[in-house]
């Protein structure tokens, strides 16, 4: 089975800054990590491969430094990695990003299963995974928390819905976005990290994957971010309740009531 895992390098959650002019996240100079939800997608791909055999390819779109995210995927055990990187891709919205990733997956060829995290923690849109599926005309299930069965022509999964979960069978090619309850991502071993460190990662350009230049990049993205603002600062207060232990819970509840927190 050939599996593609789409991952994204994102700023560490406590290190995100927004450019006031472009309204885009400033990635330069900030600490970058693999989008946490994507680690679950990588782990699930590895678990499936352990059952069925095959090949796992990690795919991302981003600047040169996104190679470090792919190297982390390699150190976890994926077989190879591909970076889509070119100025022409810069500023792509979720629609244009889905388009580019779908074209790359077509170029890889014969992919049966595509795994993504349920969303990225920077944009929080949860649109790219479903967008890729639409462009590839693949079946899709979002918010998957369990892969029940892998068969020759289909995969059966449990996905979360408002009331509980659905059991869904999807014929290949299929795309799954996964939630964090699905597994515990493995921690890379030193030996694998050292091998990944030296890995050559191919960089694909728009012309390598046959993209239409009018459908990628900031200028050709159908959505434009008009205004962005950081969340309001939380007013955290540390309150020391100095009293006898037997009185502490009463005092604590009174303080919460006073602040209308309960």
């Amino acid at each position, binding site marked *: 089975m050939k599996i593609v895992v789409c991952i994204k390098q994102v700023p560490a959650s406590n290190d995100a800054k927004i450019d006031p002019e472009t309204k885009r996240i400033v990635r330069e100079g900030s600490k970058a*990590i693999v989008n*946490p939800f994507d*680690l679950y997608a990588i782990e699930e791909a590895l678990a499936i491969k352990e059952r069925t055999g095959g090949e796992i390819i990690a795919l991302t779109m981003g600047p040169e430094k996104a190679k470090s995210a792919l190297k982390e995927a390699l150190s976890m055990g994926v077989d190879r990695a591909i970076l889509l990187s070119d100025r022409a891709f810069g500023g792509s919205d979720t629609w244009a990003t889905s388009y580019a990733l779908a074209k790359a997956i077509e170029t890889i060829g014969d992919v049966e299963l595509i795994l993504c995290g349920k969303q990225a923690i920077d944009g929080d849109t949860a649109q790219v995974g479903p967008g890729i599926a639409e462009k590839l005309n693949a079946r899709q299930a979002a918010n998957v928390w369990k892969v029940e069965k892998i068969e020759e022509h289909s995969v059966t999964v449990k996905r979360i819905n408002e009331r509980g979960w659905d059991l869904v069978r999807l014929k290949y090619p299929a795309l799954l976005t996964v939630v964090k309850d699905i597994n*515990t*991502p493995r*921690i*890379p*071993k*030193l*030996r694998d*990290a*050292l091998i990944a*460190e030296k890995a050559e990662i191919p960089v694909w350009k728009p012309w390598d994957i046959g993209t239409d230049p009018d459908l990628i990049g900031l200028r050709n993205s159908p959505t434009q971010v008009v205004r962005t603002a950081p969340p309001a600062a939380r007013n955290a207060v540390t309150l020391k309740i100095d009293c006898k232990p037997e009185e502490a819970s009463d005092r604590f509840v009174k303080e919460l009531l006073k602040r209308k927190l309960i």
Partner: protein
Amino acid sequence: MGDEMDAFEKRLNKNFHVEIIPPKQESENLEADLNLFASKLERVINSGFTASITDNAMGILAFQGHECIEELGLRIDPERVLIHLNTFHTIKNLDEILASCMRLGIRSILAVSGDGSTRLPKLCPADVECKNTLSVTSVELISYIRKRYPEFRIGVAFNPYEPEKHEFEKLDRKLSAGASFVITQPIIDKNPVIDRLLRDYSGLPVTIEAWMSKKLYLLSDVVGYPISEDAEYDPIATLEKLRGVYPQCGFYLSLLGFKTQYQLIEEMA
């Protein structure tokens, strides 16, 4: 094993344990960080001290000490290496670590509950063959290691800042589970709870942690009350004083400056 353990434990009481943190998983220059780890380890062992290698300290993902030693092919005196082991592992990883330590000849483990993070798994009671508990603490970890890997001598942490009765009860459980030596949380002066530990458990080897950073305020979370950022602190002088107060104990040196402090420590020893 008995005589061998006696020798080890006797040495514990005169020894410096120097804490070494392996390279982080997010290292931006892994090769350089591994070289630094190797040079620190070599220096500590050549000094005749014990190298205490942490396990994802503060929940920050790092490579394991045993895999750094194996992968780099480092020559070590295994009697001078102490591996920390916490409860934030899968059982497969835990067994791999212990098996690797066996291969390397390392026989000393510091079993602690440890600091978790969203990236770290946690042992379940069933993993360590425990039925009557909801979560795995250092006590269950010690029981498992003792049962499955009786070759190891196991140390445990002791926190003099916890409620005293509770901490001594916990220590009793750890000792009943199979622990045979203790390393304390850092102190900076004579401590009445440590005095009681030494008095009431007179046969038990105790290593006292000495705080080797000049930034004393970083201890605030450990001691449970705020320490001013302006507080002046001389780690070397404090260590000398503590050695005078507790001459029967070994000392665990965390946050030791290898460039600025190490030579002074060697001279002191």
